[in-house]
């Protein structure tokens, strides 16, 4: 291999590796109770240390007319025109587990950010911010119970 080409490859690696190290995959598992109703709409999102909206990680449930029932997320994320881009899926049936894998910047971990989940089920009571768990390394792997529809919630940092 010629010297200029090797230099270019080495420079590219040096630039790419730190960029790759700045984020890590996070897997969020949410298991629902057997609450005796239709599939639940869930919004999984991040808020910063001040409680301001940071990013939507997943929205389970495809009909926009029901998003008003995910009231915390709907209110906080209303200014984000890309909040639904590539992050929507089916509603989650009772007793089932939603597993969301997202890539999060290292700077978000142990920096006061929270993972929040709003939940809503047709003809049942809405449950905004049913889960509020700080995004910290110490919380990783620990199960948390919800108030109404969520039996358990945990996240893993890889």
């Amino acid at each position, binding site marked *: 291999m010629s010297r200029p080409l090797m230099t270019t490859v080495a420079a590219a690696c040096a630039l790419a590796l730190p960029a790759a190290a700045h984020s890590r995959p996070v897997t969020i598992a949410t298991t629902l109770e057997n609450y005796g109703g239709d599939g639940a709409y869930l919004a999984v999102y991040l808020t910063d240390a001040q409680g301001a909206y940071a990013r939507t990680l997943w929205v*389970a*449930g495809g009909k926009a007319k029901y998003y008003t029932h995910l009231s915390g997320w709907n209110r906080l994320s209303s200014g984000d025109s890309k909040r639904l881009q*590539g992050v*929507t899926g*089916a509603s989650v049936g009772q007793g*089932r587990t*939603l597993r969301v*894998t*997202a*890539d999060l910047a290292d700077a978000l971990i142990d920096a006061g950010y929270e993972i929040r989940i709003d939940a809503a089920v047709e003809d049942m009571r809405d449950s905004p911010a049913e889960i509020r768990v700080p995004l910290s390394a110490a919380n990783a792997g620990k199960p948390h119970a919800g108030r109404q529809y969520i039996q358990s919630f945990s996240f893993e940092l890889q």
Partner: protein
Amino acid sequence: MKTHPSLAALFLGLAAAPVLAGDDCDAPVQDWQPRDAVMQMAAQQGWQVQRLKIDDGCYEIRGRDAQGRAFKARLDPQTLRIMKMKMGDRDHDRERYRAGERTQGGDASPRSGDGDAAPPAPGATPHGSIE
């Protein structure tokens, strides 16, 4: 002719039903943004528009997003707000449907419900699956 009150209530109920149905848009035509504005908004989002049509009183776009993934989006014709967005290829969906791979709820994007939870490459968009 004397109308029975319960019959009148039934007719009124039937007349009101279409108003309550679906994800329809109800912006008056004079308030609609022109198609050019929709195309401009799509360009700002980095979308490649393959088809722009009107469905149930809303604009509906089929195309590919900035990452090259196929999608279908429904826009409010007055504000151009995204009301609904489904990711995935229509033909791919049809094949999955034929193969009997119906996902729970019927409104899943093809990225959802496929059971695997492989970590994404850095910079990838989130991935959800139901178990």
